[in-house]
């Protein structure tokens, strides 16, 4: 079994620093204390080639951090890279290959135009679907339209996700977007993918986040309050959206969640960090994970259930929607938010009596999903 014993994050946003500098900002506070203990580095990043003209990123990072001889690998699983990197880090420890694994998530996106970023990210689609003009944000529009039709959900449901996550981000000094929005402002903003508007999509962000993993047994020699990975589940779906039997379900999320909760022997979590690249995804994912009732998840947003003080707080960090979504960093930053919440260190966005949390790191449009259940106790 594996625990998180340390973590650090950069402010997400349009940053002047380059990719390696962002990594250093997130990581130096950890390695200043524990450099000699770390025996493996796992880097979560997808687009350093496309965005930054860099390859062999893990080795470049290790060298930049003065850890030239520490073995390292890069994990690329698009938007879900962070969850996959933690899975790999945990597996390295469970298998005995490594003892203390530094997981670094990072992406530097803002040097490209929005059209270029959209195009680069759409390269995860099969060529026939990409050639039709399909993009990741466009699929969120399709999902929103179908969700509204199937469940008679009002349009405002999705806007309320953006309102909540913008509010939560105001409580997170590391979040990209520092601005409250109202339902009216969300609905009146420029449409990106009908019916969803600008405020309902994650921004293009730069950022990095690092966490240190050890075995449960060793964890207490690193910190008095380790956060334990109680369960982890990963699952995949077809990369071809047109080949999926049900275009509005997220099969990988459902399966990964069931595996993680079963492994963790947990039925209820106190908070969740979900992959809200678009507002509608937060609702559908929460339903697939059993956090909200299938087809009725939207109702929770009218009742404040998912707010920090609600029954099922979701995306206390501001989520991808407002904290930002530097692709490779996002899944690691979710784990870091769980680390803070379960150590009672989340400041004025702290969930009261948080003992068990969950994160969903998702690739593409549910192309794969990694769900992690965290606990303040093993």
């Amino acid at each position, binding site marked *: 079994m594996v625990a998180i014993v340390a973590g650090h994050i950069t402010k997400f946003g349009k940053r002047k620093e380059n990719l390696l500098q962002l990594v250093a900002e997130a990581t130096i506070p950890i390695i200043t204390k524990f450099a000699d203990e770390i025996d493996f580095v796992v880097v979560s990043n997808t687009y350093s080639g496309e965005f930054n003209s860099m390859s062999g990123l893990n080795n470049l990072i290790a060298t930049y951090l003065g850890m030239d001889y520490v073995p390292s690998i890069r994990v690329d699983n698009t938007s879900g890279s962070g969850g996959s990197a933690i899975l790999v880090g945990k597996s390295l420890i469970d298998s005995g290959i490594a003892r203390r694994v530094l997981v670094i998530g990072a992406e530097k996106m803002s040097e490209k*135009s*929005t*059209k*270029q970023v*959209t*195009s680069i990210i*759409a390269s995860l689609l*099969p*060529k*026939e*679907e*990409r*050639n*039709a*003009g*399909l*993009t990741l*944000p*466009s699929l969120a*529009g*399709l999902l929103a*339209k*179908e969700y509204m039709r199937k469940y008679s959900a009002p349009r405002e449901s999705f806007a309320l996700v953006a309102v909540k996550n913008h509010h939560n981000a105001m409580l997170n000094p590391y979040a990209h977007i520092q601005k409250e929005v109202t339902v009216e402002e969300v609905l009146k903003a*420029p*449409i*990106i*993918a*009908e*019916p969803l508007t600008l405020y309902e999509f994650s921004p293009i962000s730069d950022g990095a986040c690092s966490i240190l993993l050890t075995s449960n047994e060793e964890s207490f020699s690193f910190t008095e309050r380790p956060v334990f990975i109680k369960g982890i589940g990963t699952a995949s779906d*077809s990369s*071809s*959206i*047109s*080949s999926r039997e049900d*275009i509005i379900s997220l099969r990988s999320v459902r399966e990964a969640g069931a595996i993680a909760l079963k492994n963790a022997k947990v039925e209820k979590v106190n908070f969740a960090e979900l992959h809200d690249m678009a507002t509608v995804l937060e609702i559908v994912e929460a339903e697939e994970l059993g956090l909200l009732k299938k087809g009725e998840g939207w109702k929770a947003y009218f009742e404040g259930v998912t707010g920090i003080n609600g029954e099922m707080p979701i995306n206390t960090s501001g989520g991808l929607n407002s904290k930002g979504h530097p692709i490779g960093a996002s899944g690691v930053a979710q784990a870091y938010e769980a680390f803070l919440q379960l150590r009672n260190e989340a400041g004025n966005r702290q969930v009261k009596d948080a003992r068990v949390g969950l994160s969903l790191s998702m690739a593409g449009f549910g192309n794969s999903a990694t769900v992690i259940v965290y606990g303040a106790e093993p």
Partner: protein
Amino acid sequence: MIYSCKNCGYSSFVSRARCPRCGSTEIYAIAENEGRALLCWKLTATPEGFEDSYYLCLININGKANAFCRSNESLEGDVVEENNGICYRKTKEAANN
């Protein structure tokens, strides 16, 4: 254009080396591209090399495979033909009567 498995008939809009249903590697491109547009929705943030806005349509080709194509207007409900990612209207949706 869709791709069909010679062994089991599984059809898909995307090309594959192996059938996900039966495992056969005998997959053939077949010249079927007509179907009904099940859903259309507008996209206004588009990738490099594409128009600044267009409608995307999810279409079903002859009951065999779903596919995507784009158009400069909504074709929801219409019979369309897909060609190289673009949809062309064949028959307008019949008026309710």
